[in-house]
């Protein structure tokens, strides 16, 4: 089931209406059943996978608690099952093609059959979420759970099951276990969040996506058209993914849950490190805690720190998809971060004051670097990628120049609400917002302005939503 369908809206209204009439335990049963309905809507066989992986991790957690001397073995089993499943469904074909090509290069042919199955949606997300549980239990930072219902609900909680945020067990599991209370002010804030999510998806991402898809379908776009298309893709992927996260957070809030924030205006980042503190926060913090730090982090000297950063980003790139372009994208960001660490070792807040004047330039510079990365991310064909990276601007090609400007302006117009939202959230909203005891914002000026904005967004959504509805990009990861 997809968020941007009326089927989901109807499903959610039914679930939420029944949910708040039930006692806590029954709420969790309903959450589990509805999450399985949500997940198995198109391909019911996906349920067998998620159930098997849930059962293994639940069992492994209990065994680690019951047999501490053998806990390494049970962690190994959890890693093997989760990463094995992920590897098989997501990376097998990539592996088979590359092994075949490598052997063919030395005149040795081994036919490896291709896997003809659909990649289970969200497998990368729930696998990592479950791993956060077994890793935390292994480290002794979290108690192993003894209630399968609660654990299974934590794994398949439908608002964030398919495309995150990847929640940590320590944050989400206690929320599953504790009784939850309904609050109208929180429901109101959640409604704003959901509406903003739908607007980002249907108006910004899908309209920008049409431009990007058109440009990337061309055999040989000119320099300016190509980069306008890359810019449109940058808008699309951010609005699309941020939309999913916002809808997920809003829907979860209606059910009494608090999910972590996944994006903090990433296109206002002033450097690579800042970007990764703002982009897909749940994944980057996962890699930081479970890959970068265990590798040694920055504790073992400068060179090892660089190696650790680079290795973490390579893995992060590979997590996104079974293709070399994603690895290249990860390597590119790893390299950016290493270079930025090397040339500017001072940490945030320790920059001299005059640097603040350069902030707009640094934001623009980082936006350009991010867009170069999006080209690597979007272009899955190595031949086209090489051609695009080596396309130079032709100042005599007036059509390419004006067409590029036209496409850029088109994407920019659709992205305007994102920039306005960033200014609103960073500079205006905090001054108006006062929170009450439940965490909901209670001040009248904020409420009035937020309602007006929501009304405008809804009116614009009805008219300017893209005629061509595209899938959420991160579904395929």
């Amino acid at each position: 089931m997809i968020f941007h369908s009326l089927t989901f809206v109807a499903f959610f209204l039914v679930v939420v209406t029944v949910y708040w009439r039930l006692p806590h335990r029954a709420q969790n049963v309903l959450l589990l059943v509805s999450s399985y309905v949500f997940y198995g809507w198109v391909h019911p066989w996906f349920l067998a996978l998620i159930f098997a992986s849930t059962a293994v991790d639940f069992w492994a957690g209990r065994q680690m608690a019951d047999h501490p001397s053998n806990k390494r073995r049970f962690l190994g089993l959890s890693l093997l099952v989760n990463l094995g499943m992920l590897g098989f469904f997501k990376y097998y074909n990539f592996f088979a093609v590359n092994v075949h090509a490598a052997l063919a290069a030395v005149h040795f042919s081994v036919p490896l059959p291709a896997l003809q199955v659909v990649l289970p949606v969200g497998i990368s997300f729930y696998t990592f979420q479950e791993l956060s549980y077994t890793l935390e239990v292994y480290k002794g930072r979290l108690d192993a759970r003894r209630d399968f219902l609660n654990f299974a609900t934590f794994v398949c909680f439908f608002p964030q099951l398919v495309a995150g945020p990847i929640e940590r067990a320590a944050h989400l599991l206690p929320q599953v276990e504790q009784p939850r209370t309904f609050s109208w002010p929180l429901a109101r804030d959640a409604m704003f969040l959901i509406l903003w999510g739908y607007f980002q998806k249907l108006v910004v991402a899908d309209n920008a996506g049409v431009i990007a898809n058109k440009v990337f379908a061309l055999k040989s776009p000119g320099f300016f058209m190509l980069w306008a298309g890359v810019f449109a893709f940058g808008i699309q992927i951010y609005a699309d993914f941020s939309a999913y996260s916002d809808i997920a957070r809003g829907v979860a809030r209606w059910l009494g849950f608090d999910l972590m924030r996944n994006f903090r205006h990433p296109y206002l980042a002033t450097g690579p490190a800042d970007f990764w503190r703002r982009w897909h926060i749940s994944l980057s913090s996962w890699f930081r805690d479970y890959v970068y730090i265990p590798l040694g982090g920055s504790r073992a000297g400068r060179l090892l720190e660089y190696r650790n950063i680079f290795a973490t980003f390579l893995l992060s790139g590979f997590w996104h998809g079974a293709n070399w372009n994603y690895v290249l994208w990860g390597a590119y960001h790893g390299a950016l971060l290493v270079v930025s660490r090397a040339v500017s070792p001072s940490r945030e807040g320790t920059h001299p004051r005059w640097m603040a004047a350069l902030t707009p330039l640094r934001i623009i510079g980082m936006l350009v670097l991010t867009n170069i990365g999006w080209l690597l991310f979007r272009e899955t064909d190595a031949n086209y990628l090489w051609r695009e990276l080596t396309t130079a601007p032709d100042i005599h090609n007036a059509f390419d120049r004006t067409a590029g400007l036209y496409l850029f302006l088109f994407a920019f117009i659709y992205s305007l609400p994102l920039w306005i939202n960033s200014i609103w959230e960073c500079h205006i909203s905090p001054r108006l917002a006062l929170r009450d005891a439940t965490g909901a914002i209670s001040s009248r000026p904020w409420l009035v302005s937020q309602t007006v904005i929501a009304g405008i967004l809804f009116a614009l959504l009805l008219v300017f939503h893209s005629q061509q509805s595209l899938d959420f990009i991160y579904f395929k990861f």
Partner: protein
Amino acid sequence: MSSRAAAALPFAAVLLAIIAAPLAWRGALAAWGPPESTAPPSYLPAAEARREREPFDAKPLQELKTTDPGAVIIGDSMAGRVDPVRLGELIDNRPVATLVAPATGSGWWYLAFKNYVVASGVHPKWVFVFMRDTNLTDPMFRLLEPYRVKLDWVAHEFEPELNDVVGQRMQGPWYRVHDAAQRVYRTDRVRTWLEPQLAPWLARVSTGIRKRQQLLDGLNAAFGLEHLRPMAQADLAAVDDQDADFAANINRSLLPKWVELAEANHLRICFIKILRRPTADGHPAAESPALRQYTKDLRAWLEARGMVFFDDRDNPEMAKLPYADGDHVDGAAMTPYAELLWAQMQKIRK
């Protein structure tokens, strides 16, 4: 008032304000929008707003009543492969009526059947419907611009069955909710008012008013089929495969209504899937596995409901007939085609 209800009031007020906000579009339309069309509402409200339409063409209805044909042929130019005179001779020397219009799709064919054949009250021995590939279960094929005018000729003021399937195709299973929202907020009118202004305005900003049209024409050419990557063209084939999913499309097509109508009026229909043009080296046109499966499913579905299905591939002699341009057979093949078709019908009846 209970404290719970009181707590819900501010929420309800915010929700109402948000839901009411798009009503401002109605005010904007009244103040600055183009004048309201005086055209009658479309018979396809799921696809379009009010529009001046061509009148219903009642002539074929009269002709059917007058000639009382032994057979009726319905279809697009693919139906031109059968010689109606020869077919009439074979059907007890009775006339054969042709309800054929080039560049039409299953929407037109269905309306021609309903509004002419059924409405006339005639009882031909056979109604032959000619189609290509998956046309029969694709109501969107040649339905909207630039084919709308032809549909006007065969459509009455209301065509609820056609509108239903078009709504499902265009807006999914919840299209009635979309329709209701459009009626309340008039968003379709706002869209047709504002959207066409955005592209020319941005073109003017990009290149100045004089070269604006030149830029827009250039963009259309730059994104033409010949400039697309081979993979993008392969994607079009994938779309075809989606169309060939019979189970997914049958209930979103006019075919169930069509068969119901035929049964209720005791009319026998033979659906004929024509053979596409041969390959350059003279071999019969190839079919994708998806299309083969589709044909098998379509045949089983029709035969289970007492209809007749004939695939030109069923008779290898059909593949030997000469072709002219595209998928059209040569004029010399029309008579043999009528004879082969009739022979096939005799076999089926036995």
